[in-house]
């Protein structure tokens, strides 16, 4: 029995995951304590607890799988993941508030989000790809293949459309190429078209940014091919050019979310509502919070999506700054442990995968917690291990299981 359960304490990160997950079940319970008729039933926490049980069981199995198996499965797993994502686009259904988004796939009555599994398979494939290199990427063209590998599932997820999950794929890419030893200016250049896209809403900001980029390219000129510098500039100009058509192609709710991020009072009853009420919930929690299940913003249904995307607001309202900082410190501990595990890994495949998953989780935590306080725009992205969602919890634990499996492998 001890041997069976050993993976639970062999790696200290698992303790953090267990704490976060159990806290999450409690928060899902609290999110169901409402004084208004709601679609959120009080029993959701039981489902979440059951999924946690299944997740831990799955973790105990998967974390014992030898590294070699994952190397074998990386390529076919990637193909399968992309295939299922494509299938989801055709046969997927929405869920909850994201009714119009086809992100779920039902198989025999079981609904799951293929994108969650695809994160793992993409991280595995990317790790396998980068591990084949003998040296760190030196040129932008070295990043082309890894970027293309991630772009395929990312694009499919964007088509659902699910911006939040797509950002998680970006997290995988950048975390992995970072751990591959890519020089940071190169990473910045690679990211620059994205930054330019975001800044293009203001012509002045964008112009200033392009000038800065030019200076950067000039200073870095001896380490880049000319073609690459030109590509970076062209990429940025292209990003600025597609910004407007891209903006128009966004769904109305997405545009509104971005607009109210800049000014929530723009539409306080509708699009700005979530953000305003979430800020009120978090802020009114104070240092110690209003007490478990006692959050008024949540209890009286002012807080939207209180059991999924905005569960961090419930944490903030009911446990105050003590609660939110405890959760973030736990995540911080988890991330530090993962960095240490990657550092200690004997095989580069292991470290690269660990960083891929680390990129996913950091993206989720920063965007999810950040949106509850207006730091980043509202994107439908859950908080790992805490937000309600069976398949998401299960897949997060599976990712953790692979992380532990790879870290434990000292072959």
């Amino acid at each position, binding site marked *: 029995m001890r041997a069976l359960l050993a993976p639970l304490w062999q790696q200290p990160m698992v303790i953090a995951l267990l704490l976060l997950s159990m806290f999450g079940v409690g928060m899902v319970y609290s999110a169901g304590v409402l004084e208004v008729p709601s679609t959120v039933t009080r029993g959701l926490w039981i489902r979440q607890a059951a999924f946690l049980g299944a997740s831990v069981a799955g973790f105990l199995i998967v974390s014992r799988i030898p590294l070699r198996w994952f190397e074998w499965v990386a390529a076919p797993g990637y193909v399968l993941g992309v295939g299922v994502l494509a299938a989801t686009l055709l046969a997927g259904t929405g869920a909850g508030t994201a009714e119009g988004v086809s992100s779920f796939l039902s198989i025999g009555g079981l609904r799951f989000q293929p994108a969650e599994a695809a994160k793992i398979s993409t991280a595995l494939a990317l790790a396998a790809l980068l591990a084949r290199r003998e040296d760190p990427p030196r040129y932008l063209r070295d990043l082309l293949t890894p970027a293309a590998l991630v772009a395929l599932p990312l694009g499919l997820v964007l088509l659902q459309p699910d911006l939040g999950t797509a950002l998680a794929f970006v997290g995988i890419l950048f975390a992995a190429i*970072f751990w591959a030893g890519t020089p940071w200016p190169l990473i910045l250049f690679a990211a620059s078209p994205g930054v330019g896209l975001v800044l293009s809403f203001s012509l002045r900001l964008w112009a200033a940014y392009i000038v800065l980029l030019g200076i950067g390219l000039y200073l870095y000129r001896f380490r880049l091919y000319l073609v690459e510098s030109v590509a970076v500039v062209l990429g940025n100009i292209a990003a600025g050019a597609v910004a407007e058509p891209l903006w128009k192609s966004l769904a109305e709710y997405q545009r509104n979310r971005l607009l109210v991020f800049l000014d929530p009072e723009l539409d306080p009853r509708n699009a700005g509502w979530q953000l305003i009420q979430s*800020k*009120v919930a978090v*802020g009114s929690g104070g240092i110690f919070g209003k007490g478990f299940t006692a959050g008024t913003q949540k209890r009286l249904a*002012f807080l939207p999506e209180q059991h999924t995307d905005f569960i961090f607001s419930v944490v903030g309202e009911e446990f105050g*700054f003590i609660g*939110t900082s405890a959760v973030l410190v736990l995540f911080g501990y988890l991330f530090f442990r993962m*960095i240490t595990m990657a550092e200690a890994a004997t095989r580069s495949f292991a470290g690269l995968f660990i960083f891929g998953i680390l990129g996913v989780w*950091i993206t989720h935590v920063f965007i999810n917690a950040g949106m509850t*306080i207006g730091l980043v725009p509202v994107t439908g992205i859950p908080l790992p291990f805490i937000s309600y969602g069976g398949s998401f919890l299960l897949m997060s634990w599976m990712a953790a299981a692979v992380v532990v499996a790879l870290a434990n492998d000292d072959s």
Partner: protein
Amino acid sequence: MTPGNPRLARELAVRARVVVVVLLGVLLSVLFRFQVLRSSDWLLESQSNRLRPLTVPAPRGVIRDRAGRVLADNVPGYSVSVIHDQPDSMVSTLRRLREHLELDDRRFEELAARARTGPPRPLLVSVDAPFDAVAALQERRSIFPRLLIESRPKRRYPAGRVGAHVIGYVGEINEAEVEAREAEGAEPGWIVGRSGVEAQYESTLQGRPGMRYVEVDATGRIVGSFEGVPGLAAEPGTDVQLNLDLELMEWIDRIFPEGMHGSVVALDVETGGVLALYSAPAFDPNLFAGVVDRAEWDLMVQDPESPLYHRAVMGKYPPGSPWKLATAAIALDLGVVAPGDRMPVSCRGSYVFGNRTYRCWKPEGHGSLDLAGAIQHSCNVYFYQLGLDIGLARLLEVGNRLGFGEPCGIDLPTEAGGNFPDGPEFWERRYGYRPLEGEALNLAIGQGPNDQTPLKMAQFVLAIARDGSAPAPRLLRSAAAGAGEASWSLDIPQEHLEQVREGMRRVTRQGGTAYLSSLEHFDLLGKTGTAQSGGGRPSHAWFTAIAGPHGEAPEVAVVALVEFGESGSGVAAPLVAKTADFHLRGRHGIPRDTIQTLGEHLRAGRSAAWARRPDR
């Protein structure tokens, strides 16, 4: 690659940790600002999100009569309101409410219109919902999530019809009044006095509404009461005590000729306090305690008998013979006559002035009379000559000084002044000719362009009962300074005034027109009147009187007017006599009896030896 290069791995790990620390540090510092530095602002926001102030109605002050009997008080009632929402959903709630609450089409349309255009406040559907309806609605709370059921005091008038006009009634405040009384915190749903004492002493009776907080959810549905933030207790209105005597009012209601219209006024001689202010027909003010049913209201307004009309203070009638008292008082005030004087022409049934013959009511004539005799016999010929002696201009001048063209100033929101010419110019304005002295003849006997309210006539005889001065009649019983202070005064020597009283005294003596209305225990000094109503209808019956214990100063002034009552002596005089008797017996501790007047004694076959005693 990294594992093969521990130095690079170490360097990258450090950088990665820095990134993690920076990202989490940003989150933590923003959270610190939200939850520690600015928390109180957000806490306030979360309170204002979920807490809504609700008005707690203040119970209105109780209105009592002089003996402390309740004229108007409060009983628990339930109000039903629809919480503000999208107009469509409010209207649909109203529609579903009709299954449980009585809402006629008109009321429904009215409420629906208010739901569409009204202010964002709870829409008051019923101020007084029946208990079973309230119970049914409470059971269906889930179907009616946006319904607000509150207990609120409801006005009750235990005396019902009796005193309806003088006490008045209440109703829901209208939008214009809400604006006008904003400083007092008025808001829709307030119940305010609409007429009578309820309106007159509105600010005293109203009190100050309190406030309490309820917790609402995101949709505005009330989840529960909230005790965390202290509310404001309602300040009940101040009670009001009146000079009215409910027993007397009820007695008058009992003895008033059935089916007839008219009024009875009784004033306390010493203070001018209003003991009774009765108007028939009446209405039940309890009908107005809730939201007034539109149809019922229309019915009452359009009723040809005008039950809402307060005849005692609004009804203007030709004064007829009782006015001769006024003519006498004016003549004495001006000093144109001494009580013992006799007129140059004695009454032969008519009097010729100019080229016209003015008739006395008694064709065979009264002969030569002094003032008291002329009052006793109501001799027109005497008063024609008295009118001429006074002269039209002076008659009008003093008449106006005595306030016959103005309201008495009773503490009621509405009171009509009499119709009395303000001067000779009146005829020019009204009829286009200069008045001849002959107009004085008509005015002297209470005819011509002169109409008075029963209350004004009561105030006038009040002055005769006193020293010639009269205060404004007062409903409010208060010891405040200025109460009972005279508003006008006659300049008549007391012995002359006594001669007028003597004339009135003889009216109820043997040979007087109201002998049958004389009383066993009290002196009744009166003047009958049968005033032409015009239009070929029966005359109005008047009796104006003062009464008190034998040989003592009068204690009460009573006036009765019965519309189309035909006979002052036969209809109005017994009414006054029985009213005065009822009141005075109570005042002097004499057991009350339904057989009061001489006429009733005779009809009942009782001994009435008292009526023939020489000292009376």
